[in-house]
């Protein structure tokens, strides 16, 4: 899903970069408002975990692999705005590994951060609403939304390619090919996301942003109220 340099023309890449920079700036502001300073290492861990798991390409069809994007995983764990920042950090570090083009960095943060992260989180919130309020529902909603988020990101790429692609590929063929293979990758994304969210919910449900408001957190002494804010 990492767009290299050369796929999308400079003007479209620059436009997407400007849009993404605005979205990233807003996300940083919102994340800073919603996170506590003590949660900074946790958000850093989420980014590091996504970096690591993005390296684990799994086969999805003959001669084709996929890997986690992690937008929904990050959004369910630390919130959608912090998720965008996490993905931006991951993609920025990956540039040092020559993965994902530098001029395409804005496009990649757009697709994997804003579209998969915030878009996927909206899907997660919608699915969670219709499910019973249990820990299993949070994991299930996260998994389903994660799978859908991969398809959303692949559709976003197709849209960008139609605007600024450097080769003339028919829209229908490109959309069909992108969505087709990313449905398969989405299954892997969904399984990894549901398993990871489920594992964190078992160990520290209080650290899962997407499980807030559910009374599934084990009985613990109430935190000292009124200290901050």
């Amino acid at each position, binding site marked *: 899903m990492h767009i290299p340099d050369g796929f999308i023309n400079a003007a479209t890449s620059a436009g997407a970069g400007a849009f993404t920079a605005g979205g990233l700036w807003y996300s940083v502001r919102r994340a800073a408002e919603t996170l506590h300073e003590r949660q900074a290492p946790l958000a850093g861990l989420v980014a*590091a975990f996504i970096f690591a798991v993005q390296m684990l390409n799994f086969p999805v069809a003959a001669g084709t692999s996929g890997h986690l994007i992690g937008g929904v995983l990050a959004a369910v764990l630390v919130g959608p705005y912090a998720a965008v920042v996490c993905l931006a950090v991951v993609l920025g570090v990956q540039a040092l590994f020559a993965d994902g083009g530098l001029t395409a960095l804005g496009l990649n943060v757009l697709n994997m951060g804003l579209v998969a992260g915030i878009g996927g989180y909206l899907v997660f919130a919608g699915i969670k609403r219709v499910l019973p309020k249990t820990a299993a529902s949070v994991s299930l909603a996260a998994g389903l939304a994660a799978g859908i988020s991969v398809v959303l990101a692949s559709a976003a790429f197709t849209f960008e390619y139609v605007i600024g692609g450097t*080769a003339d590929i028919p829209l229908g063929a490109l959309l069909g090919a992108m969505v087709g293979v990313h449905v398969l990758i989405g299954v892997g994304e969904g399984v990894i996301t549901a398993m990871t969210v489920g594992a964190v919910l078992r160990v520290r449900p209080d650290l899962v942003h997407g499980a807030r408001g559910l009374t599934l957190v084990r009985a613990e002494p109430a935190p000292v109220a009124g200290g901050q804010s």
Partner: protein
Amino acid sequence: MRREARYFVIGGLLVAAGLAMFVSPFASGSPDGLERVSIDQRFDGTAAGHALEGSPVAGYGVRGVGNDRVSAGLAGLVGTLVTFGVGSILFGAVVRANARRSAGGRRAAAAEAGVAESG
């Protein structure tokens, strides 16, 4: 951070580093979804070389390490730790900056309220 959350972060980091070091060398090397589509639709040739191709960790391998799996594992470890460092420092900085800003805002509001009351 509460004590046990610190343990959670340390434990999570060990899991991430373990995956990057010991599992990533065995990950599939096949083209990913986008690469596959670009090959099938015949636009893979439009991809330009990466500006940081000369990086010592380009292509998820540490330059100079002969064994491919060791090289990939080390690159994974470096990337995981760098991502954690950059992420936690960045998040810490923006959260602290926001706290300072809102504290300043509260002081200004309190001062204004004081003026309004006395006036």
